[in-house]
């Protein structure tokens, strides 16, 4: 039995790619190593009655055209708004930004009138930035070193749109691509906690500090979600992020795609320099016209293929590609709700995100620990309690709390992650307890995911949640390997469609779709 395309990995990008191919009438097979679909966008009942979005926990970057094309709502995807970000401060005060613009302005004015004014301007500016950047997400990155006219035209088109922007928007755009999150925000704001908590989204998934140039871009990367559609802010998926993957899978199946779980790939088969199928760990060999890998370049080229089949400089490029997982995840099953000293009680602030990013120094110190190979003693955290918005994920009266934790460097200077896991978990709980002391008494179960666990469980090399750092030298036409940013690989008929390709990580689906488009163009069914 022969397929048009085999897709390695049943993550949201692999599934998206499959759905688009199947929709175009191709015979598609998706092979997922684990027993569940979704990759990092997965819901699992870790403890009886408690369902967790084990890794990725919020949705918003998912491209609207994908939601439409695949009619995901009809397949059971429902996004619930996640309102606001609550940031407790060391001095007992807090900063609470919500989607209601005027409330937020009043709140910021409490800290600084000037900043309240600037917030207006900043919001407008970022919308412009997003408008400019969004079309680039859907673009196959051109190769600036080749004379391929299509690529040059794409670059020209970007240049045209760049020049069409108002001067100060242009300046912002350049700064976003080059500055550090803090330097960028410094231009607008004076309130330390505001800059700290805003800059936090500039470091997620990178091994950079909020003062490192390049982090302003990641700021934008996370902002684009907020711009899609009607300025939608971050949201939760009913039933956890796994529900998104399942909806995409359902859509793919609906178009006739075949999806197998617990079917780990051992090897990509090639015949005379051309991908011809895959071999599973159980020895089965499956043939296909095209093989598309949604897993990261390390697995694809160094594990599933024999590097000797590949050009040396390409292999060097793959080896040099930076992962550097820098974050961990702590999932808590709670008997009650955390009680923040800064704002006591089970108020609406618990329904949004809670950010442990009280000051720029706090963020920098967290980074300093990591730079020298230790996890942050007092880490930055982005916390949500999905059970408040979606009761279906926890038993009545109980709650699930998801803590995204940075920094947790994959490479520890002392000890192994297996030895350090619980110490890391304790550091996280202690850091939360500084702002919500009751946390320790309401924890029923705790799941600690170190970068090593993320690598083992979810096949993300070095535990990098974006399948590779979102740093400037690894973006656009440099992602994942310079010269190979167009979803194709040196092996004929082998393509990439994961977060390691442009435009990168997050539950966005764009890499999967872009790759599918390229395959459909090149390989006639």
């Amino acid at each position, binding site marked *: 039995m022969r397929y048009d395309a085999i897709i390695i990995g049943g993550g949201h990008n692999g599934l998206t790619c499959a759905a688009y191919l199947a929709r175009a009438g191709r015979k598609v097979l998706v092979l997922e190593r684990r027993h569940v679909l979704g990759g990092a966008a997965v819901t699992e009942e870790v403890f009886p009655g408690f369902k967790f979005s084990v890794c990725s926990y919020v949705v918003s970057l998912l491209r609207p055209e994908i939601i439409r094309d695949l009619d995901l709502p009809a397949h059971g995807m429902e996004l619930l708004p996640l309102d606001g970000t609550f940031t407790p401060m060391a001095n007992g005060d807090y900063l609470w930004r919500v989607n209601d613009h005027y409330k937020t302005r009043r709140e910021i004015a409490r800290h600084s009138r000037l900043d309240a004014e600037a917030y207006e301007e900043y919001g407008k500016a970022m919308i412009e930035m997003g408008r400019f950047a969004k079309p680039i997400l859907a673009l196959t990155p051109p190769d*600036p070193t080749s004379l391929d006219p299509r690529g040059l035209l794409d670059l020209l088109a970007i240049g045209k749109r760049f020049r069409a922007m108002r001067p100060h928007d242009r300046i912002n755009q350049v700064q976003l691509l*080059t500055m550090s999150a803090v330097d960028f925000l410094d231009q607008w704001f004076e309130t330390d906690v505001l800059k700290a908590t805003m800059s936090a989204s500039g470091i997620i998934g990178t091994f950079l500090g909020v003062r*490192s*140039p390049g982090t302003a871009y990641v700021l934008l990367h996370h902002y684009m979600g907020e711009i899609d559609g009607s300025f939608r802010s971050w949201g939760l998926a009913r039933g956890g992020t796994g529900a998104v993957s399942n909806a995409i899978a359902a859509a793919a199946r609906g178009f006739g795609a075949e999806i197998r779980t617990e079917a780990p790939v051992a090897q990509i088969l090639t015949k005379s320099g051309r991908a011809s199928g895959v071999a599973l760990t159980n020895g089965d060999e499956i043939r296909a016209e095209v093989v598309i890998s949604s897993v990261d370049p390390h697995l694809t080229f160094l594990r599933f293929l024999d590097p000797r089949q590949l050009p040396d400089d390409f292999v060097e490029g793959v080896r*040099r590609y930076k992962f550097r997982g820098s974050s961990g995840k702590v999932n808590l099953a709670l008997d009650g709700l955390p009680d923040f000293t800064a704002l006591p009680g089970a108020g609406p602030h618990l329904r949004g995100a809670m950010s442990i990013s009280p000051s720029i*120094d706090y963020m920098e110190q967290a980074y300093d620990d990591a*730079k020298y190979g230790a996890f942050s003693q007092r880490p930055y955290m982005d916390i949500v309690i999905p059970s408040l918005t979606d009761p279906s994920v926890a038993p009545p009266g109980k709650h699930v709390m998801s803590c995204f934790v940075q920094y947790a460097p994959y490479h520890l200077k002392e000890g192994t992650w297996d030895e350090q896991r619980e110490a890391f978990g304790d550091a996280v709980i202690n850091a939360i307890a500084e702002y919500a002391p009751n946390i320790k008494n309401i924890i029923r179960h705790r799941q600690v995911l170190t970068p090593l666990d993320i690598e083992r469980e979810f096949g993300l090399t070095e535990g990098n949640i974006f399948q590779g750092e979102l*740093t400037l030298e690894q973006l656009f036409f440099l992602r994942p390997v310079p010269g190979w940013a167009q979803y194709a690989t040196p092996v004929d008929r082998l393509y990439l469609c994961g977060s390691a390709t442009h435009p990168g990580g997050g539950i966005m689906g764009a890499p999967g779709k872009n790759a599918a488009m390229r395959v459909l163009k090149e390989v006639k069914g």
Partner: protein
Amino acid sequence: MIGGGINGLTCAAYLAKAGFKPLVLEATDRIGGGACTAEIAPGFRAPILAHSTGPLRHDVIDDLQLRSHGLTFLPSEVSVTSLAIDGRSLVIHEEVNQTAAALREWSPRDAEQWPRFVSTLASLARVIGTLYSVTPAPIDDASGRDLWALLRTLRAFRALDQADAYRLLRWGPMAVADLVGESFENERLRAVVAADGIFGTRFGPWSAGSGLVLLLRAANEALGPARSWVARGGPGAIAIALESVIRKHGGEVQTGKRVAQVMVRDQRARGVVLVDGTEIAAATVVSGVDPKQTLLSLCDAADLGPEFLWRMRNYRTFGTVAKLNLALSSLPTFPGVDRESLTGRMRIAPDVDYLERAFDHSKYGRYSPAPYIEFTVPSLLDDSLIAGGGHVLSAYVQFAPYQLRNTNWDDAADGFARMAIDTLEQYAPGLRGLIVAQQVITPLDLERTYGFTGGHIFHGELALDQMLTMRPLLGWGQYRTPVRDLYLGGSGTHPGTGLTGGSGANAAREIIRQLR
């Protein structure tokens, strides 16, 4: 011409040579700005600020015939030596294969890599170099001339093989620590190379973008004499040579003339007012001092407009370098370092983490207790600096953040100097005993005495967003300002990066075109 620094003087020299009549007004009693030689103790003359210049560009030296105006360079075979407490120092020679040979005992792999690294860096530098001698193209209305210039760069870029082309794209935004990590395995070599990516900036080796600084400096080095070469008579000699060029062509240079304000009438610069109230009229006013000082303190905010003001206030000029000058009764002994190596630059940069830690302190408003230091002993090559016996030692000490927390530089200076000397003492036991006199110049002194806003030795951070057509600001990268006939010609304009004369030469070309 406001400010008698190297770029200001270069600009004035080009203007004079073109037949115009420039007047250079230097606020202090000595020309040269960052490049000055002066007595720090009777009989001991030292490079007060910079000890190795930009380097000064070949084309500037030739165009202005500086050699015939008394400028001579004293060559050194040794480029940089990375000192080790155990005496096992690593020497990088100007000559590539000599270095490779020296590296063999450290790492055969790196020894083999070195020539490749040097040639790669050189070919990338050539591409960047093509941008240095032209005015950056404005992004809105690039003229035919601009496009032609860009075409040259594009051709140079295409001339690179694909691997190098991509290196250029990758290395710029990269952290220099990653860059050297990709290239070498030996920590000491990595650190001594990475140091070029952080000098004078607010970057640690792990800060993304420090790779660009390394490339920019490499581009400079391709355009001038080796950076370890020193001018006979110290950097000040360069200023003196430039001054003599200006005078020869009928220009004027006056010291002790501090400008208080740029005279502006109906949106045009008409001249300057000195602090003593004297008004001096001129067809064109050029400022060699940094953009912030020029526009925020010498100009009237009303002439600039709110948007421009806001941008200029956000132009980053946070200094991180302090200077330590020592007069020594005799040559200190650095275990394991021969006399020849001492003629080059010495660096205290044992490993990349050392540099990063030094940087960490500056983030929290403290100076590094274990700083990155680059020093020279110029008197070894140039006996004209010493009247009697002895030697002078000139050291850059980083990181010394312009803003200290819960103290100020006036109170902290002594403790800082002690710390810096202790650090040197570790590598040269007995050094302290040889000190006849010492001079410490903090970032605050750099601002107050020498006029570097924020104490930033490069007139503004060397960051991706403050480079090329964005230096100092996007839309104002062509040496012009919102005030007609007021130009910028200092290091805060493209190509910047210090005492190369590049900014001054480019500015002069623009001004001459305008005046004709």
